[in-house]
C-alpha cells in the first residue's frame, strides 16, 4: 500500500531568473513497511527533496509545484504541501519522523537526553503522567541498546554512535509510519555504522515502519534498501529494486557510480568511475544534465531532457534516451535483471516508451 506519494515535486532556491532548480519533477512512492534508498552526490537535491516532503524547507528554498500525498488509515489522504501548520504539527513525529545527519547538532547540549525524550511524549501524549513518560523514555533508550540509566546524561557525555541512537529512539517515540533518515550514519565509524544499521533493520522488522534512507553511499544502500532511487542534478534518474540496480543498472550515471566504489574482494582492476564533475545547478547543461560526463551521449541528449521510462513490468524506471527502446542499448546498460523473469532487454525492447512521463 502506498504510504507517501510524491508527484511532480519542484523546489527552487531563490526566484526569478536567478533561481536554482534544486529538485525538478520528482516522483517517488514509498510503500508501508518499505526501506526506500535515495542515493545521490552532494548537490543532487536529495536532502532538499526530503526537507520539501516534510515541509521543513527553509527560505530561500521554495516549493514551486507538485504534491506530496500522505495516505492515512481508512483511505484518508492529505496533501502535505497544502496542509496548514496545525495539521503538520499533528502529523510530525506521530506519523512522519526525521533523523538528521548530525546528531551532534540535533540534540540540545544543555538538556539531558531524558528531558528531550520526554518532551516529545509530553507534547503528543498528554494523557501520560510524569512517571509513565519517564518509563517510556527509558524503554525507548533500551530499544536502541542504551541503558535506561543514561536518561540523566547530557549529549556531550555520549559517544557519536550513542547520540545517533538517541536520535533514532526519539524518532520512533510515537511509532510513526515513516522515518526519513538523511545520512544518519555518515559521521560515524564503520563498525558503529554497521551496528546501528543492524539495529535499525531489526526495529524496522519489529515495528514495520517505512524508511526513506538518504545517503551518498550507494554500496550501503544496496545492502539495506529494498528499492533504490538515484538522483542527479535535481532529477530522479533511475529507480529499481536494490539487487536489480546493483546487478543490472540501466542509467549510465548509475553504472558509473557503482564503478566508483572499489571492491573488497576479487582481483584488483583499475576503475574509471565518472569523468568530469557534477554540474553547477546555477547553470545546468541543456538536455540531459549528465550528458557532458556520459560516454554514450547522443545528439538528442544535448538538447532534450529524457523522459522517465517504465522498464518491464516491475517497479523500475530510468530517465535515459538509450532506454526508449528504439536505439541499440550498450551491453553495460542491458545486463540481465536478477529480479525480472525474462531478460529485461526483451521486455523493454518490445514496449517502447511505455508510460513515459514528459518533463
Amino acid at each position, binding site marked *: 500500500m502506498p504510504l507517501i506519494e510524491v508527484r511532480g515535486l519542484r523546489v527552487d532556491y531563490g526566484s526569478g531568473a536567478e533561481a536554482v532548480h534544486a529538485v525538478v519533477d520528482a516522483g517517488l512512492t514509498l510503500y508501508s513497511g518499505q526501506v526506500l534508498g535515495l542515493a545521490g552526490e*552532494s548537490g543532487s537535491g536529495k536532502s532538499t527533496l526530503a526537507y520539501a516532503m516534510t515541509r521543513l524547507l527553509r527560505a530561500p528554498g521554495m516549493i514551486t509545484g507538485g504534491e506530496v500525498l500522505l495516505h492515512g488509515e481508512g483511505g484518508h489522504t492529505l496533501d502535505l504541501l497544502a496542509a496548514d501548520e496545525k495539521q503538520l504539527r499533528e502529523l510530525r513525529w506521530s506519523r512522519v519522523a526525521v533523523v538528521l545527519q548530525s546528531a551532534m547538532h540535533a540534540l540540545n547540549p544543555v538538556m539531558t537526553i531524558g528531558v528531550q525524550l520526554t518532551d516529545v511524549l509530553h507534547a503528543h501524549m498528554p494523557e501520560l503522567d510524569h512517571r509513565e513518560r519517564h518509563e517510556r523514555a527509558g524503554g525507548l533508550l533500551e530499544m536502541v541498546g542504551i541503558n535506561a540509566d543514561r536518561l540523566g546524561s547530557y549529549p556531550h557525555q555520549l559517544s557519536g554512535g550513542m547520540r545517533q541512537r538517541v536520535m533514532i529512539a526519539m524518532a520512533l517515540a510515537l511509532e510513526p509510519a515513516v522515518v526519513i533518515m538523511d545520512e544518519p550514519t555518515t559521521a560515524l565509524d564503520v563498525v558503529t555504522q554497521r551496528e546501528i544499521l543492524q539495529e535499525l533493520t531489526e526495529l524496522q522488522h519489529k515495528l514495520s515502519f517505512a524508511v526513506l534512507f538518504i545517503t551518498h553511499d550507494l554500496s550501503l544502500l544496496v545492502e539495506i534498501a529494498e528499492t533504490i532511487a538515484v538522483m542527479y542534478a535535481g532529477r530522479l534518474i533511475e529507480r529499481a529494486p536494490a539487487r536489480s540496480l546493483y546487478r543490472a543498472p540501466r542509467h549510465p550515471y548509475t553504472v558509473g557510480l557503482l564503478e566508483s566504489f572499489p571492491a573488497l574482494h576479487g582481483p584488483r582492476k583499475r576503475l574509471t568511475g565518472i569523468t568530469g564533475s*557534477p554540474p553547477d545547478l546555477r547553470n545546468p547543461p541543456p538536455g540531459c544534465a549528465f550528458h557532458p560526463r556520459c560516454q554514450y551521449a547522443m545528439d538528442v541528449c544535448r538538447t532534450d531532457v529524457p523522459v522517465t521510462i517504465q522498464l518491464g513490468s516491475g517497479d523500475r524506471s530510468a530517465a535515459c534516451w538509450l532506454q526508449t527502446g528504439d536505439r541499440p542499448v550498450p551491453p553495460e546498460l542491458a545486463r540481465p535483471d536478477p529480479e525480472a523473469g525474462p531478460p529485461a532487454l526483451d521486455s523493454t525492447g518490445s514496449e517502447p516508451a511505455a508510460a513515459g512521463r514528459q518533463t
Partner: protein
Amino acid sequence: MTVVQPATRPVSDQPPALLEARGLTRHFAAARGRGVVHAVDDASIALAPGSITGLVGESGSGKSTLARLLAMLVPPTAGELLLDGTAIRASKRGRRAYARNVQLVLQDPFSSLNPVHDVRYHLARPLQVQGLCPPGARLDDVIMGLLERVALTPAAQFIRKYPHELSGGQRQRVAIARALAVQPRVLLADEPVSMLDVSIRLGVLNLLADLRENEGLTILYITHDIASARYLSDDIAVMYAGQLVESGPARSVTDSPAHPYTQLLLSAAPDPAQPLSAPLPGHGGAPSLLAPPTGCRFHPRCPHAMAICSATEPPPAQVAPGHVSSCWLHSPEYAPASAQTTAEGGTDEPPSKLTDTD
C-alpha cells in the same frame, strides 16, 4: 575462494626504505592536567621507494597524528625518523630540508587553500619558501607544468582562478599540485578523497596511482576506507588506538586479515556481496586514549580475548611473507586450533567453530 597472495616483494631483500619511522610516539597533555592522551604509541613504518602504503584506521586511531609526525609538523615524544636511512635532525634547517623531500596533503580542500589567493599564488609559494623560484616568466611555465601534472587542463584557464571558482575535486588537485611543487620524493596524503563527491574520488585516487606509476613518487595514503586502500596500495598498515596492529601486502591483509581488529573492520565495511545481518566479529567503539586498555588495546572488543590479552601486549608475529600482525592468537602456546581458520578470513567461513566468549 581466497588465496593467500605471496608478498610482491620479499621483505628482507627490499631496497632500503625511503622514509622510515622507528618507534614513533606522541603523547598530548589532556586539558586541565587530566592526564596524557596516547595518540600514537611506538609506531614503526617503512615506505619503500616508489610504493603506495595505505594506513587504515577509524577516527581517533591516531592515523592523522602519525601523518603529522611523519611530516614533522608535531615533534615526537619518542622515536626517530629516517630519510634514506639517515636520522633527521629537528633543527629549523633540518626541517626545511626535510620538507623538500616529504610533503603533506590534507583532507579538506575547502579549508586548506587560502580563499583570498589565486591558484598561481598557492603554487608559487612553496617554490619561494624553498628558494626554488625560477626568475620572471619561467615561474608561470613551472606552475602550468604542475597543473598539467594533476590533470587541471588547460592549465592557462586554472592559473588565475580562486578557490571558490573550483569544485572540490579541482581544489584537491591544486592542493596536490602545491605539495608536488618542490618535487618531493614522498607524499603523505591524509584522507585526500573523503571530503569529495563519490563520483570524483576515483579520479583523485587514480591521479595518485599515476604519480607513482609515472614519476616513482612514494605515497602514504591515509584513509578510514579499507576498500579504497586495497584499491590503491601495495601495502596496508592497520592502526588501532594509537598502535599499528597489522601490516603487509594489500591483498594479503584484506583477503586474509590476521588481526581480529582488521577482521572486524573488513566485515563492517559496506559490501553488497554480504548480507547486512551477518554478525560482526566484535562490538563496541574505540577506547579512550587517556587510559588505553592494558595488554592488547583491542581486547575489550575482541571475540577471541584470552587471559593473556589483558595482561601483556602481544608481540608482532609474521603470518605470511611480509605480513605481520600483533595478536596472541599467532603465538603457538596461545593459538586455539581454530584460530588459523579465522585468519583465512572472508565471509564464506562462519566463525562457529570458535568458542565465543560473549
